[in-house]
């Protein structure tokens, strides 16, 4: 074999930076030889990934010199927009592109800034969202979403995590957990949540003996490592969870009494109207002191003993502790009923319930850093498996209640926020995430440090207090009614026009859309829907690395710089999916370019700064002020709203603000990152804060009542009963299909090799995708395939009861529920400019309906499960 020829090396440099392939933003080191990026390795100083990095990152090295990258701005010369219709791109100068865009934005800004829509990508570790939010803030606009992928992402999960963990999402303290139940969650295996951090942590946990019980239709990434894989019909997990709660609370009669009484609203008294019984003066909910036998407000320091069972008279009103109602409610969910719905055997439901409470070791404690904490080494986690269905909120809320009843919330071994509390860098005390309790109802107030912006609360992920539904509506996504929702489907649903007619704002369309890296034509619902939405946009510009499918609807495409070619200071400051969980040390690494952008590529943040400057000084001032507010910049770090900045300069200020005046951009370029020790109080804050989590979701009932009050009179009917204070099973649309020819359910899932629709462009990742039986195939259970006479490699159609269909090659596998069809997303590119990704894998989302009846009425999560039939595709020339 050829030995290495070191004489070729003229320059050899290593850069400390962060990956930008998925939102985990794992710290990496990149080597360049003679200015060419040649190697991606993990960052050994990162407490999270501990020097490792996954295949997606390694395989993405080719993104810099990919000949299919867009290198100049282009504008369309063909006015006709549609799928497969050539825009007939013409290369233009940056000057022309930005002048055109700035003019459009200025016009909108002067008329009505709300007439703009932003699409971001929910992933892409670049996390350069602040400049985009600055744009909407300057416009005074609230039409922002993570394209279409967002509503197939975490609407319910983020909402519930915000309320229960004060964080964007949740995971488990896998450094100490012994028993982990996954409900459709592949954290630590294929998911981007924590990516390498979770991969390492879960592997360590497995090696230590942690058991993994995996409820998943597919035995693949996480099911394949499970101690017990439990195949389950999608959308029925909530019934199983409620049955487990029934067994735990009513049969085993075991729960963490201290946690229930002091850290949840279990003792709160509920009246016959299903709402809290409140103190008239303070509006604080009442509880019943079982010793003094009287009603007191929940935070009354004189309470001797919280009653959680019984019925009590509160000034003539019958009040029942929420816990009592919960126990009665879950009684209707027998294991037999849950088994019938889900196909999970009764004995499995019983065994897992028993093991869960046994492994939770309720009452035990552990000493960490000299402090004593409750030790609850059992947890349940989820994400897409519960979130991507029409019963998303009920499912996710129910799951979190499993952790509540065993007291495994932000204590050692249990379910954790991602992370929730931070006292800040030792030298500066920043960033500071201060979690606290709402004084009225005791609910958790998330302390993410994102400051006030003109954009409003969504940026701060402050779920509490809930902005109840109000009119008039100002957003095209109807987010005055659904204010707690991150990503609204109503920007592009098939009933969008009808919903806007009845509920919408006083403007019907955005006059312009801006897209950043999102490929929503592929990540949304069916193509008819998506095409119809995108075709109507009067002016649509995007930043992208390639001429992807969505660019077929754009007027101007701007060539973005990839993560290896651009700077981003705050990538890891936003710890949504990458913060060090549990006792892992804080580690902040920033992203710097390892080479100059090739061609005329320019990083999006710099371009937006340029555009904002061109729009005008007033606009620019608001734009820059948004940065000041967003990061809470203080003192010398405050940005001058009259100065023209590059994003590197902004990053410099941001870094200095958080880590000290000596630790700006140049320091970070040299040193890569800062790490400092985690304190136990930061990791396990639960018992430090008087806040409570809801076992009874009283405010959800209010949310539903208010939404119904607005919608019903306007002729919009939705399943309002899903706004239930006690999570319940509601069938998804797929469960209601009775025609026997549609006998299979669909699953779209995330492949360990891919994220979104961007990784298929990388030849190395594409090459290994073909070496496994999942990535590029439609998976059917082997026995199901045999019964239907389907053979391996055969091309089949998968068709829904609504006549939508997709096509692809079959791979028969054993590890799949017999009633399932599984496809890894998001594949099946068709853009002729994507020479590597085109035609690879199967395009799934065309099967999906997106309208008010196919989304969760509470969280507006879309449903990725449809009922289908399969049949061979004839040879087509």
């Amino acid at each position, binding site marked *: 074999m050829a030995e290495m020829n070191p004489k070729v090396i003229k320059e050899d440099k290593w850069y400390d930076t962060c990956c930008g392939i998925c939102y985990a933003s794992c710290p990496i080191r990149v080597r360049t030889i003679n200015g060419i990026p040649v190697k991606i390795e993990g960052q050994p100083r990162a407490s999270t990934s501990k020097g490792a990095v996954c295949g997606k990152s390694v395989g993405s090295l080719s993104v810099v010199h990919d000949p299919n990258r867009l290198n100049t701005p282009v504008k369309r010369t063909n006015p006709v927009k549609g799928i497969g219709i050539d825009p007939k791109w013409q290369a233009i100068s940056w000057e022309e592109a930005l002048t055109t865009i700035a003019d459009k934005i200025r016009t909108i800004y002067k008329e009505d800034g709300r007439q703009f829509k932003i699409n971001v990508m929910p992933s892409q570790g670049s996390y350069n969202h602040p400049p985009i939010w600055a744009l909407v803030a300057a416009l005074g606009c609230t039409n922002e979403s993570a394209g279409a992928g967002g509503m197939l992402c975490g609407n319910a999960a983020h909402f519930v995590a915000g309320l229960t963990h004060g964080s964007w999402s949740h995971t488990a303290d896998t450094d100490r957990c012994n028993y982990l139940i996954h409900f459709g969650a592949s954290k630590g295996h294929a998911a981007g949540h924590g990516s390498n951090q979770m991969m390492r942590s879960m592997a360590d946990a497995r090696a230590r003996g942690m058991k993994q019980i995996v409820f998943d239709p597919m035995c693949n990434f996480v099911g394949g490592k499970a101690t017990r894989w439990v195949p389950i019909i999608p959308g029925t997990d909530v019934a199983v969870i409620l049955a487990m709660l029934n067994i735990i609370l009513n049969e085993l009669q075991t729960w963490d009494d201290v946690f229930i009484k002091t850290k949840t609203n279990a003792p709160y008294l509920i009246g016959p109207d299903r709402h809290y019984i409140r103190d008239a003066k303070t509006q604080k909910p009442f509880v019943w002191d079982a010793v003094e036998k009287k009603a007191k407000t929940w935070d009354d320091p004189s309470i001797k003993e919280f009653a959680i069972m019984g019925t009590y008279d509160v000034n003539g009103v019958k009040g029942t502790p929420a816990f009592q109602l919960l126990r009665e409610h879950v009684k209707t969910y027998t294991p037999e009923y849950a088994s019938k719905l889900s196909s999970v055997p009764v004995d499995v439901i019983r065994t897992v319930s028993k093991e869960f409470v046994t492994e939770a070791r309720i009452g035990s404690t552990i000493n960490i850093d000299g402090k004593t904490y409750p030790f609850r080494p059992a947890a349940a986690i989820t994400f897409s498996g519960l979130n991507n269905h029409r019963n998303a909120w009920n499912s996710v809320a129910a799951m979190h209640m499993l952790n509540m009843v065993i007291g495994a919330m932000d204590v050692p071994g249990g379910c954790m926020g991602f992370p929730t509390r931070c006292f800040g860098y030792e030298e500066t005390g920043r960033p500071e995430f201060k979690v606290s309790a709402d004084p009225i109802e005791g609910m958790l107030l998330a302390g993410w440090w994102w400051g006030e912006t003109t954009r409003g609360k969504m940026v701060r992920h402050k779920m509490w207090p809930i902005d109840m539904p109000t009119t008039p509506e100002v957003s095209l996504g109807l987010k005055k009614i659904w204010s707690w929702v991150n990503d609204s489907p109503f920007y592009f649903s098939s009933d969008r026009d009808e919903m806007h007619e009845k509920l919408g704002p006083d403007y019907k369309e955005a006059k312009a859309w801006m897209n950043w890296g999102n490929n929503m034509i592929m990540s949304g619902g069916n193509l008819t829907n998506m095409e119809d939405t995108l075709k109507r946009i009067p002016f649509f510009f995007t930043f992208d690395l390639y001429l992807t499918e969505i660019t077929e609807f754009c007027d101007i495409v701007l060539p973005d710089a990839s993560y290896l070619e651009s700077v981003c200071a705050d990538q890891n400051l936003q710890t949504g999916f990458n913060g060090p969980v549990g006792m892992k040390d804080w580690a902040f690494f920033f992203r710097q370019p390892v080479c100059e952008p090739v061609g005329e590529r320019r990083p999006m943040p710099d371009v937006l700064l340029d555009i904002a400057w061109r729009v005008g000084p007033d606009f620019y001032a608001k734009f820059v002020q948004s940065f000041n507010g967003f990061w809470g910049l203080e003192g010398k770090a405050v940005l001058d709203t009259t100065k023209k900045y590059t994003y590197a300069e902004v990053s410099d200020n941001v870094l200095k603000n958080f880590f000290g005046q000596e630790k700006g951009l140049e320091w970070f370029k040299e040193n890569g990152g800062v790490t400092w020790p985690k304190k136990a109080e930061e990791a396990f804050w639960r018992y430090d804060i008087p806040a409570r989590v809801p076992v009874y979701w009283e405010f959800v009932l209010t949310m539903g009542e208010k939404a119904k009050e607005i919608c019903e009179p306007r002729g919009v009917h939705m399943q309002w009963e899903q706004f239930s204070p006690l999570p319940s099973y509601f069938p998804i649309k797929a469960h209601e299909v009775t025609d026997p020819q549609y006998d299979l359910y669909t699953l779209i899932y995330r492949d360990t090799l891919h994220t979104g629709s961007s990784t298929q462009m990388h030849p190395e990742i594409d090459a290994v995708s*073909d070496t*496994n*039986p999942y990535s590029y195939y439609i998976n059917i259970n082997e026995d199901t395939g045999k019964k239907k006479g389907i053979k391996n490699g055969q091309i089949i159609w998968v068709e829904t009861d609504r006549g939508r269909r997709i096509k692809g090659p079959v*791979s028969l596998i054993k590890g799949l529920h017999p009633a399932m069809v599984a496809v890894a997303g998001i594949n099946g590119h068709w853009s002729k400019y994507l020479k590597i990704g085109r035609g690879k894998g199967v395009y799934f989302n065309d099967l999906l309906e997106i309208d008010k009846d196919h989304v969760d009425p509470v969280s507006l999560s879309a449903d990725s499960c449809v009922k289908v039939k399969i049949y061979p595709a004839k040879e087509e020339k």
Partner: protein
Amino acid sequence: MRQTQPFDYMVKYTQQKNWIDGRGNFIAFAFFLGGISGGLFMAAAYFDSLLGMFIAWLLALCMGVSYMIHLGQPLQSWRMFMKPGTSWISRGFIFIMLFIGLTAVTLILARWAPDATAAITTFKVLAGIFAFAQSIYTGFAVSYVSAIKLWNSAILPILFVVCGFSGGLAIMMAIAIGNNSTDINAIENITRITLIGFAVILIVYLWNSTYSSNAAKAAVTRVVGGDIAPFFWIGVIIFGVIIPITVSVVTYFIGEASNALLLTAVSAEIIGGLSLRYVVLKGGTYEPLTSTE
């Protein structure tokens, strides 16, 4: 074996790809030529046919060319004699070189010094030994590969050398027909025995392989009933066994056989020999590295 998907590699039975298909076919061709060249020389030496020995020598040269085409770096081929201690290819290289050299000397002596009978005989015998070695070594080279159970059989070298000998006899027969030689009957007799022996050894080889391991069984299944079956049944059995044996039986009973019939048998045996090497190499199947069904 169902159609192989890329992810079946080393999970299901995986066929070796280096010594077959594309450039790899030149190895099959070379093995065949080695066998037939060695077999022809032994037959020609026995029947004292200069032409036969010369053709055997030419076939050996062709084998060398075929090997060179297969090699990735043929210019380094001079190094191939370096490891006779452990490498059958190295030994084979030496055998082939010695066979070519000794045969050349034999032929030169026979042609230009026909009276030097002692020397001629000595060189002829030595060449004959290396003819045998050249004919059998490919069987050893292949059976040395313990991971391919179809190959890892004690019978394989014998099968190859007997096949080579029968192919050599076939060419010897063609030469005898061309010369109107009186040796035709003797050649026919030896051929009959060789053919029957070949058929028996082949059946024993395949049958016994099904006992040795699952991979071998899977390989034999491919050979007799899978994707390789056409080459096996048509090439090896019909051309390599049935046609020659039928002709042999017919000539035994009718006494005098037409040249056309005999030449048919000759061509069939040659096709059969080539097919056998192809089938064995293509059937080479590895044990899966991980669990499979």
